[in-house]
C-alpha cells in the first residue's frame, strides 16, 4: 500500500526533467497529466473568448434595435460563440482535462494506453481550433449559420462555412482518438485485481462517454459533410 509519505527520490511530474526543455517539455509531453493540463489551458482560454462573445450578445440585446453591432456581425458572433463553446469547450471539456489527468490514477495505471496517440490528439485539437478561429478571420467573413449549420441555409451563404465544418470535423477526429484511448485504457490498464465494478464512478462515466464519442462522431461528421455536398 502506498502511503503519502514522500520518498527521497520523489520528483513530481511538474518538476520532472525530460528530454525537452522549456515549452517543448509540455508540447512534446506524453505524460497524461501534462496533456490534461495542456487541454485545461486551451479550453479555459476558449471558454473566456466564448463567454466574452456571449456578453457582447447580451449587450446587443439589452434594447430593441441596433445597439452595438450590425445584424450580420451579430449572426457571426453567435455562430462563433456556439462553435467555440460546443466543439472546443463542452465536448472535450471534462473528459479531456480531468479524464486525462485522473483516469489512469483512479484505476491505478501509470499512463493511458497510448500516450503518444494522446499527445497527437491534443495537437489535432489545437489544429482544429486554429482552423475554427481562422474561418472567422479570413476574407470571406465569419460563418453566420449557427453552430448547427442548418442546411440548406448554410449552403447559400457566401461565408466560410466549409472551413468551419472542416474544423468541426478535425475536432471530431481528436475526440474519437481520445475516446478510443480511454476505452482501451479502461479495458487493459486497470491495476491487477481491479474489476470493472471495483472502479470509481468517474471512470464509469468516462467509459460511457468514450463510447458515444467513438460511435456517434463519425455519423455526425457525415451529416456535416452532407452539408458541404
Amino acid at each position, binding site marked *: 500500500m502506498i502511503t503519502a509519505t514522500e520518498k527521497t527520490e520523489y520528483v513530481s511530474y511538474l518538476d520532472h526533467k525530460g528530454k525537452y526543455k522549456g515549452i517543448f517539455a509540455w508540447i512534446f509531453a506524453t505524460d497524461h497529466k501534462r496533456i490534461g493540463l495542456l487541454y485545461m489551458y486551451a479550453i479555459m482560454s476558449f471558454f473566456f473568448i466564448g463567454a466574452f462573445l456571449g456578453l457582447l450578445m447580451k449587450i446587443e440585446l439589452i434594447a430593441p434595435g441596433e445597439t452595438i453591432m450590425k445584424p450580420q456581425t451579430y449572426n457571426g458572433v453567435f455562430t462563433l460563440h456556439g462553435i467555440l463553446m460546443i466543439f472546443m469547450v463542452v465536448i472535450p471539456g471534462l473528459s479531456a482535462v480531468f479524464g486525462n489527468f485522473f483516469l489512469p490514477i483512479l484505476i491505478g495505471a501509470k499512463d493511458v*494506453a*497510448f500516450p503518444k*496517440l494522446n499527445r497527437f490528439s491534443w495537437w489535432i485539437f489545437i489544429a482544429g481550433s486554429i482552423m475554427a478561429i481562422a474561418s472567422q478571420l479570413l476574407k470571406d467573413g465569419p460563418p453566420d449559420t449557427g453552430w448547427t449549420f442548418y442546411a440548406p441555409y448554410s449552403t447559400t451563404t457566401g461565408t466560410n462555412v466549409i472551413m468551419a465544418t472542416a474544423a468541426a470535423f478535425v475536432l471530431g477526429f481528436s475526440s*474519437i482518438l481520445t475516446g*478510443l*484511448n480511454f*476505452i*482501451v485504457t479502461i*479495458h*487493459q*490498464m486497470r491495476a*491487477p485485481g481491479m474489476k470493472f465494478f471495483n472502479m470509481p464512478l468517474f471512470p464509469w462515466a468516462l467509459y460511457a462517454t468514450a463510447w458515444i464519442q*467513438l*460511435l456517434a*462522431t*463519425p*455519423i455526425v*461528421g*457525415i*451529416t456535416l*459533410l*452532407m452539408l458541404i*455536398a
Partner: protein
Amino acid sequence: MSEMITHVEEHRDDEASKLGMWLFIFTELLLFGGLFLVYSIFRAEYPLAFHESSLELSVTIGAINTIVLLFSSMTIAMALTAIQKNDQKRALIFIGITLFCAAIFLVNKYFEWGHKFEMKLYPGSPLMPLLGRGYLLYFSLYFFMTGLHALHIIIGMTLLVVCYFKVKSKNINSKDYVLLENGALYWHLVDLIWIFLFPLMYLIS
C-alpha cells in the same frame, strides 16, 4: 520497476493495441456506414438519376478490382500465418504480393477516374448543371466514397510498407507481430468496405 511488472505490461500492450485498432475500425465502419446511409437516402430521392449514372460505371473494372482486393486480403492474412510460423521469407513474399495488388487496384482506379473526367462526369464540370441534381449527387458521392476508399488504400499501403521493412529487419517476428496484425486488420477493413461499395455503386441499377 520490478521484473514482474515489466512482463505484465508487455503482455497487456499487444492486447491493448489490437483492441485500439478494432475500435478505430469501428469508427471507420460507421464513417462509411454513414456515407452508405446518405447514398441510400439520395438514391430513394432520385432513383432514375442514380440508375442512369451507375450505368456509366464499368462493371468489368469494378469486378477486377474486387477480385484483386479479395486476393490481396487473403495474401496479407497468409503473411500473418507465415510470421506466426516463423517463416520470414514467405511472409515477405505475401506482403509483396499484397502491395502489388494494391498498386494494381490504384492503377485501375486511375484509369476509371480518368475516363470519368474525359466524359466530363465530375462535380463542377460544365456538363453537370445540365444533367440535374440527382446526377450531381451521384457523382459527388461516387468520387467522395471511392476517393476516401482510395485514400484508405494508400494509408494501408504505407502501413504495409513499414511492416515489410520491419519483417525484413526482424523487428516483426513470431514473438512480436502485433504491428503486422494491425496492418492486416486495416487492410481487411479496406477490403470489407469495398465488398459493400462494389454492388452499391456498380451493380444495382
